[in-house]
């Protein structure tokens, strides 16, 4: 197992946000976490990248225990987090944003190569590389956030609501990008409110409801599950 979350509990102050959540991400797969507003999807993701302290539980990545590490240390292990709302650096240029993603890397030649790759994958970013990031559209900013995460040369990509606030055409584009990234051997954890999209992309899915694990299974099975269809797919 590439990433393993065991019995995670996270509190916000005295209020419990997620309870006894266990999530497994096998090498090379796309795993999705779906659920409604406030179900604990983002909390689970932020726990993985060290942005939230755990109340209890363990997180292992490639056999190493990573819970309790600071976020900037966890990145070094190969976990890249594309945060909710994209969180690009607004006053920096597109290229500066991307290069900041490679902050920890010493392999200069490969960084240049990866930058070229990102620019090939996202031609819009290449066109706008000298432009300040805040001047771009939502879809372009999402691509920048993904590109920035790829620049750390990660083993796994944690994506928080990449489709949020984007036009359907752009959402399709993002979906293709996620598939391409995964086809190159990168594992993905996808948190989505757009359950249709998430179940279409993922191999395996977890359903969170008010901080508890309600359901899990292969994405195709959950797609046919009565409860999931009624509650999340609107079918």
């Amino acid at each position, binding site marked *: 197992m590439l990433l393993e979350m065991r019995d995670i509990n996270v509190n916000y102050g005295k209020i419990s946000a997620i309870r006894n959540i266990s999530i497994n991400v096998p090498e090379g797969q796309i795993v999705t976490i779906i659920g409604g507003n406030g179900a604990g999807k983002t909390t689970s993701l932020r726990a993985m990248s060290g942005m939230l302290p755990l109340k209890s539980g363990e997180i292992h990545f490639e056999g190493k225990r990573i819970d309790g590490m600071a976020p*900037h240390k966890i*990145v070094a292990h190969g976990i890249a987090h594309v*945060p909710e709302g994209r969180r690009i650096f607004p006053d920096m240029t597109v290229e500066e944003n991307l290069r*900041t993603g490679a*902050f920890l890397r010493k392999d200069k030649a490969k960084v240049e190569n990866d930058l070229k790759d990102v620019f090939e994958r996202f031609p819009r970013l290449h066109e706008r590389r000298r432009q300040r990031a805040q001047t771009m559209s939502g879809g372009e900013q999402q691509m920048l956030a993904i590109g*920035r995460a790829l620049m*750390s040369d990660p083993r796994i990509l944690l994506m928080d609501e990449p489709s949020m606030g984007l036009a359907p055409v752009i959402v399709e584009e993002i979906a293709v990008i996620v598939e391409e990234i995964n086809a190159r051997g990168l594992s993905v954890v996808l948190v989505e409110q757009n359950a249709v999209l998430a179940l279409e992309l993922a191999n395996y899915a977890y359903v969170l409801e008010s901080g508890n694990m309600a359901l899990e299974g292969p994405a195709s099975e959950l797609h046919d599950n009565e409860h999931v269809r009624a509650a999340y797919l609107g079918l």
Partner: protein
Amino acid sequence: MIELLAQTGLNAVYAASYISLVAVGLVLIFGVMGVINFAHGELFMAGAYVVVALYAQRFVPFFIAVAAGLVFVGLLGLLMERALFRPLRDNPLGGLVASIGFLMILQALAVMGFGVRMEYIPPVTQEVIAFSDKVRLPISRLYVIIAAVVMLSLLWYFLKRTRFGWALRASAQDPQAAALQGISVTLTAKIAMFIGAGFAGLAGALTAPLVSVNPYMGHSIIVTAFIVIIVGGVGSLEGAVLASIVYAFVHTFVTTFYDGVIADITGLMLMLIVLIVKPTGLFGSADRA
């Protein structure tokens, strides 16, 4: 008349130089740490006292004393980061109050070490560039101008062209997102404090032979620096430099043609007008202010 204008202009360029060194440091610290460093004027004062201790009292060469001032005050900045701002992270008001406490400590130390008096600092050089009979630029002022141009250019290069410079800007714009790129916020805080404090120390050290050095000299420079960063737009380095120049010209010309008190009032009026017309300052944006 032309000559008086030219001379006053030169004086203003000199004033703009040390004001911008102080103000840029203050903005850098605010940007990265999120705290307003009230002790910044006392860091300027500490730089001046390094020159008193080394150059005036122990006859160390002036430029070595100035370099020591930069480094020593930079280290004071690191001490502030470790002792005050790191424990009070996520508490900007606490950081501000702690910096006021630190200001008083520095003042008390200066009084204990040197006494409450104006220090005599022998002039570094008496040489003057004479453009004409009445337009003269003392070399010791030229040093300040050169230092400001060089240091601000180096800072610009660092922030725009180097990995750690990007890291600094990234953590100023979004500390959490910066951490997700592997940037340690503690590291960028240290860099910002060393540079910000070091610049104040450098300005204090370089101007020490030109101003009256006493334990309370930090007051007037911090008031000036606050006006400048508000006019420039809190959080904007370019704004701080531009506003330093504008403020220095207005203040110097009013001082020369009217008097110093009117000049102080004019400076404050300038700030009020900018706040009324553009509340985010000349270069500020609403989301950063």
